[in-house]
């Protein structure tokens, strides 16, 4: 076999931060090469250097049959047959799905193409169909939810049938079904078309399922590499973090405590029907279910971001005003959204300011003066707790790696010390080590009396932190399972059982 892509001793720094140091790797023709590493270990930076979007300070990148290069020239990389799914997607929000997937042309020619619209529509529909998605090609991308934008970005990379596709966390926002379809498609393109892939993911089981070979990055250097057969999940996470990560279980469920949250007969039009449950002080409740099961809608209606049509949500015995987020915040509820990139971060403001954003009012005196040092201390405490990796909290949030941005969102809400914390996919795009840390933080919060509701796609995550899991299907509460010694398999069966029938 021959290498289609060769990365030779690439280094790159940002200011004083060394993002990559002497990284070399080779991707074989017709193979899937997985790149794993903690948040901030340099995966996206390497992707961008290969794509010609960033320059390398030293070292070169070469596609088979082309000159080695190290400069900025994305057009050249595309012509060499490289397609990229960027972590931040890099879609055009103002254009339609069809045009994002099959643009009019990548030149600036003045000759009209009278029929490009219909041919783009056809190409886009075909590409989306391969992914099993029913997104309408004429929708404008800014109207799509995150998962569908992700699918559009994937379809765009696939439709060009390039020699090689770089995929930077393509599955972060997707559901199980969508992931399965994507992985099957990658395998098919690899086997039938001998296409090559560089695949980045924090979901290690996915990595082992798909990879032919693996490179593990740690702090910008190659920690280990080899054929996938040499790796297990344990070895991957050890190599990534340099420490042993054990799978933990939640601490004992609290008993005999007062209910903190009481939900009675909650309905949201078209999404959730007649849901009732209680959550005690210090209890962690998971919400599981497939996409469209009403999982996200339930979480949103609990914190007033979605207006419920019937039923009530009570905190410590007092009912919340439905559809009133400000009221929910005042009563001690915090909600951490699943999409950190479009929600909840001021990308060009400093990390510290972002983390402090939700607690500024608490540190303001009656006369309106801000106690800056106390505010910063609070922000830094939580940034430290969540191990946000940066040389300086004054740097802008957009200089952080994707996973570290997610931690800033978490710090922001944890700093409020909420009574009820609602998390939606809290570890999407977060590496195993930090995932472990975030779970640990959740357990701690619960032990100190915070009630936590966690909606997640990630079943091991639910089992690791939740005392109980509510399983939703078609907007109805189907099961209320104590996690005790529940297995992932059993939970998966409970979640997928009803949807198989419908």
């Amino acid at each position, binding site marked *: 076999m021959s290498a289609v892509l060769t990365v030779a001793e690439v280094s790159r720094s940002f200011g004083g931060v060394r993002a990559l140091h002497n990284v070399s790797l080779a991707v074989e023709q017709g193979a899937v090469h997985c790149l794993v590493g903690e948040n901030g270990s340099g995966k996206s930076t390497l992707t961008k250097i290969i794509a010609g979007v960033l320059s390398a300070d030293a070292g070169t990148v070469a596609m088979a049959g082309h000159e080695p290069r190290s400069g900025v020239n*994305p057009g050249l990389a595309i012509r060499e047959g490289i397609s990229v799914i960027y972590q931040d997607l890099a879609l055009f929000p103002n*254009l339609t799905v069809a045009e994002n997937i099959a*643009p009019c042309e990548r030149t600036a020619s*003045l*000759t009209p193409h*009278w029929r490009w619209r219909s041919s783009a529509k056809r190409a886009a529909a075909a590409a989306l169909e391969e992914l099993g998605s029913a997104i309408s090609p004429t929708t404008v991308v800014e109207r799509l939810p995150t998962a569908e934008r992700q699918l559009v970005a994937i379809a765009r990379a696939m439709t060009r049938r390039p020699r090689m596709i770089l995929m930077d966390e393509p599955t972060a926002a997707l559901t199980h079904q969508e992931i399965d379809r994507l992985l099957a498609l990658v395998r098919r393109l690899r086997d039938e078309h001998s296409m090559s892939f560089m695949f980045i993911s924090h979901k290690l089981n996915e990595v082992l399922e798909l990879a032919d070979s693996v490179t593990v990055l740690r702090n910008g250097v190659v920690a280990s590499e080899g054929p996938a057969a040499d790796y297990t999940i344990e070895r991957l996470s050890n190599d990534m973090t340099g420490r042993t990560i054990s799978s933990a279980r939640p601490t004992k469920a609290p008993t005999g405590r007062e209910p903190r949250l009481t939900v009675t007969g909650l309905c949201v039009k078209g999404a959730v029907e007649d849901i009732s449950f209680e959550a005690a002080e210090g209890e962690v409740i998971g919400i599981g279910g497939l996409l469209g099961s009403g999982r996200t*809608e339930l979480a949103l209606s609990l914190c007033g971001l*979605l207006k419920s049509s019937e039923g009530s949500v009570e905190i410590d015995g007092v009912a919340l005003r439905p559809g009133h987020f400000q009221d929910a915040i005042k009563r001690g509820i915090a909600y951490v959204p699943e999409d950190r990139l*479009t929600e909840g971060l001021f990308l060009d403001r400093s990390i510290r300011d972002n983390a402090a954003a939700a607690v500024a009012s608490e540190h303001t005196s009656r006369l309106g003066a801000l106690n800056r040092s106390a505010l910063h201390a609070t922000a830094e405490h939580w940034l430290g707790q969540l191990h946000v990796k940066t040389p300086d909290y004054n740097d802008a949030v957009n200089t952080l790696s994707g996973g570290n941005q997610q931690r800033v969102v978490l710090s922001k809400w944890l700093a409020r010390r909420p009574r009820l914390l609602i998390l939606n996919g809290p570890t999407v795009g977060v590496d195993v080590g930090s995932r472990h840390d975030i779970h640990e933080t959740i357990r701690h919060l619960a032990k100190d009396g915070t009630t936590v509701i966690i909606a997640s796609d990630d079943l091991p995550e639910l089992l690791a932190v939740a005392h109980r899991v509510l399983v939703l299907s078609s907007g109805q509460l189907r099961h209320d399972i104590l996690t005790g010694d529940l297995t992932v398999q059993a939970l998966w069966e409970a979640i997928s059982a009803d949807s198989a029938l419908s």
Partner: protein
Amino acid sequence: MKRILGIAQDAPSSFVLVSIGALYVAFIARNSAFIELPHQFAILRSSIVIGIMALGLLLVLISGGIDVSFTAVAVLSMYSTVQILNGVDYGGPIVVAFLIAAAIGGLLGLLNGALISLLRLPTLIVTLATLTLFRGFMLFFIGTDRIRELPAQMKPFARSTIVSVATPNGGKASLHVGILLLVGLALAVAVLLRWTPFGRAIYAIGGNRQAAERAGLPIRRVELGVYGLAGSMAGIAGVVDAALIRAADPFTIVGTELDVLAAVVIGGAAITGGRGGVLGTFLGVILIALVDSSLVLAGIPTEWQKLFVGLFILAGVMLPALRTWSTRTDPRTIE
């Protein structure tokens, strides 16, 4: 028709249409002379010059930039063209005047584009600087006199009409031929924006510049093209203006920047880029021309004119924002 002029990018068109309709009703109620042909033709006539400049500015706004120098470009191109043609005692067809002005304007626009690419400064800053620069160059080196003797063929152009209708009181109402030029240019820009790779690249760059870079789009070339075209449009508008007022006046047009900008923004182009279309711009221009030329007839003091334009801009800008705000129903895009 909708398809041709690109209504997809023209979401706020309905707002402009409603405003135009409301103004008509209000004006007719105050003064029935308003609806008579002479006045209607006058509105169209006064929309020609701002309309042509608005088309150029539309391209710039969609690409995510802004240009305030186009009025200076228009006057400088027009004035130099007239001097050149007078200098050689030119008597041929007027097309040549348009071509020369478009070429001069295009060069000045390219200068804008090059400065923007090279300096990587905000486009507002660069074009503010070139506005003053072009203006100063014009007044200092080229001239400050109003030239009354236009090249021979510009006079017949000034008198050419498409239709001429006798009015009941014995006068004549004529629609100036320049409106055909505006419509022709509008169609050309609509085709450019909707069907050429160049046009689509303008939308892409305005929508997400970083993504456009990553997609390998020739951003610099597109930007040069956009500012060059805006300059050419301004040059053509300058010559039309000279023909309409039958003189090359160094002090014409300058000062209408905000009217033109208002027309384009009311027509649905976003200052932040990526949005806007020809139909919306066209309607925006009509609305501005309507306000500009009708308030007097309706017996409303001219001082109010600016206030009206300001109110329309405010409403036109707020409306799409309100709309996106209220249609965000998908829970995953809330907040």
